[in-house]
């Protein structure tokens, strides 16, 4: 199997879907001749032309709103928001329009659309190129929210997202675009939306993570195995709708649960996982559910010492797991 980077896998998945279905097209800022600021669409403009890899005006609400209209006519747009931090002008279109369209029209109108957005810090991006925003969207019935953590899943998940008949938020851990490499099967495959994966089996502590934090958690688990702590790592992959059974099965096995997420602690996505475990697996627990997350400051600051203070890393995660394992 060839090894590729996360961003190459996402691009390959989109390329295959563009080739498969003439209704698929890409819409966003600088996605055309430039190939996207992260190069996620590199080469696709030359291959498919300006009508299928379309540069939008610099107006995020319009990227989503125009995508919704095209989707209702029968297209399957892949809308790129250049940085997740810039998604807020489109919030109304996503929350009030795309997410509610099927319900509010009693199923007459649906919005098959993918919204790709690079998210997360640790890249020197400061407050407005570093945000993790999944919690806004996992609070919104009508949307699906997907976060890949490795190239194999990324290729299979983006293809599933394009084929999904609903609006799918596809948050990509941008720090991992070229850092995370892995083997990707040749030939056609899909990774289903709505299924978590046990990425490392273990017996002492369950850690639930996604995206970049999942990558770091695997590193922490490897380090702790040398200390005799067996960590089970669950990659959530789809945040909404969440795979409850996989989460509960892991907790029942280990009896200890840590949720790791990069977003601010309070009201972050991990709070929902903690609540789920507390409600449905209370008698299986032999320690309190713990969360390890970003601090409750508005966003990731720019200067390196400040950014490092904000960001989680394998050492901080290992420390939290070690602490929980002793409970």
């Amino acid at each position, binding site marked *: 199997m060839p090894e590729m980077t996360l961003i190459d896998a996402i691009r390959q998945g989109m390329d295959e879907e563009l080739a498969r279905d003439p209704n698929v097209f890409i819409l966003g800022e600088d996605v055309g001749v430039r190939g996207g600021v992260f190069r996620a669409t590199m080469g696709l403009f030359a291959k498919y032309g300006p009508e299928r890899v379309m540069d939008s005006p610099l107006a995020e*609400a*319009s990227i989503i709103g*125009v995508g919704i209209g*095209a989707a209702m006519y029968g297209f399957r747009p892949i809308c790129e928001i250049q940085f997740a931090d810039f998604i807020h002008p489109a919030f109304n279109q996503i929350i009030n329009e795309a997410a509610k369209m*099927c319900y*509010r029209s009693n*199923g007459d109108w649906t919005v098959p659309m993918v919204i790709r957005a690079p998210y997360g810090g640790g890249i020197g991006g400061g407050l407005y190129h570093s945000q993790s925003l999944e919690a806004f969207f996992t609070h919104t019935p009508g949307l699906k929210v997907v976060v890949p953590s490795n190239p194999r899943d990324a290729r299979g998940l983006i293809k599933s997202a394009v084929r999904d*008949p609903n609006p799918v938020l596809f948050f990509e851990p941008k720090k991992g675009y070229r850092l995370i490499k892995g083997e990707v099967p040749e030939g056609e495959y899909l990774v289903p939306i709505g299924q978590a994966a046990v990425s490392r089996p273990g017996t002492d502590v369950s850690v639930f993570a996604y995206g970049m934090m999942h990558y770091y958690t695997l590193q922490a688990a490897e380090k702790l195995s040398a200390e005799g702590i067996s960590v089970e790592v669950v990659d959530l992959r789809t945040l909404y709708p969440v795979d409850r059974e996989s989460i509960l099965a892991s907790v029942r096995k280990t009896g200890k649960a840590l949720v790791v997420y990069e977003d601010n602690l309070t009201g972050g996505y991990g709070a929902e996982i903690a609540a789920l475990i507390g409600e449905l697996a209370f008698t299986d627990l032999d320690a309190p559910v713990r969360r390890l997350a970003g601090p409750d400051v508005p966003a990731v600051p720019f200067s390196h010492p400040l950014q490092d203070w904000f960001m989680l890393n394998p050492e901080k995660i290992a420390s939290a797991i070690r602490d929980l394992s002793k409970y």
Partner: protein
Amino acid sequence: MELSNDLLFDMYWTMLLARRTDERAWVLHRQGKIAFHISGIGQEAAQVGAAFALQRGEDWVSPYYRDLALMLALGLTPLEFMLSVMGKKGEPSSGARQMPSHWGLRRANVLSHSAPVATQSLHASGVGLAIKLRGDKKVVLTTIGEGSTSQGEWYEAVNWAAIHKLPVIFMVENNSYAISVPQDKQMAVPSSADKACGLGLPGISVDGTDIVAVYEAMHTAVTRARSGEGATVIEARAYRLTPHSSDDDDRAYRTREEVESHKKNDPILLTRQMLLNKKIATQKKLDELEARAQVEIEQAVADATAAPYPAPEEALHPVYAEEVARA
């Protein structure tokens, strides 16, 4: 342009049916039989003139909440409207999920819209883009109040349509007030059509109480759109003869004298007089139309009153497209 007698007669009938339906809803509200009504009284000529210039059933429409007359012209029935104001099962826009006058009618290519204003404009540009990408010969009409042209999403939508020469007609139904706020607190230009020149497309302002003027302006814009020459902004000037909604008291912000003075330009009266002057209809024929409207509307009220409410469990679906078959 010479409009046929049959066309003028049909347009008047649709206007009259809308007016009497609208008035009946006000009475139902004052009787305590419905919870809410939002009116289009005074805007019937603008709406019916616009609708009749389309190929109804082929072209697409992205409307706003005052468009009762437009919707009746597109095939919504008085019974369907009464089901909507009563929140009854079978209401076609949303299965009684949405408040009344939040339109949507798949069988007539009418998109579902929400309550935050100007979101529908972007959907129209998206449909326009899709029509162009497909090479279809259809056009899209989207309507909006003049106050809502203050929203960024309206500018973004018009900008998109101008850049790509999309087959969209942006009709601004300027009824002089946005709830309580008059036009001069919404814009510095004398007409919302003047905004078009800054975006690079034609903008024209017509007397929205003159159904012939509206039809002719729309016909020109539709011809332009269908032939690939691009979008047009049309302002149809009218006056909102009722309060904003059944929950509004317009005495707080305008005098009775002002409202009375505009009743001279009631589009129903003006169009009726035109039919008499041109000898398209006799007074007897007009009286018959009144009687016919009354019978049709009373039957609609009776049928809607007898209709069942949705079962509570219908509120559970369809959140996602996969559930549509179940709903």
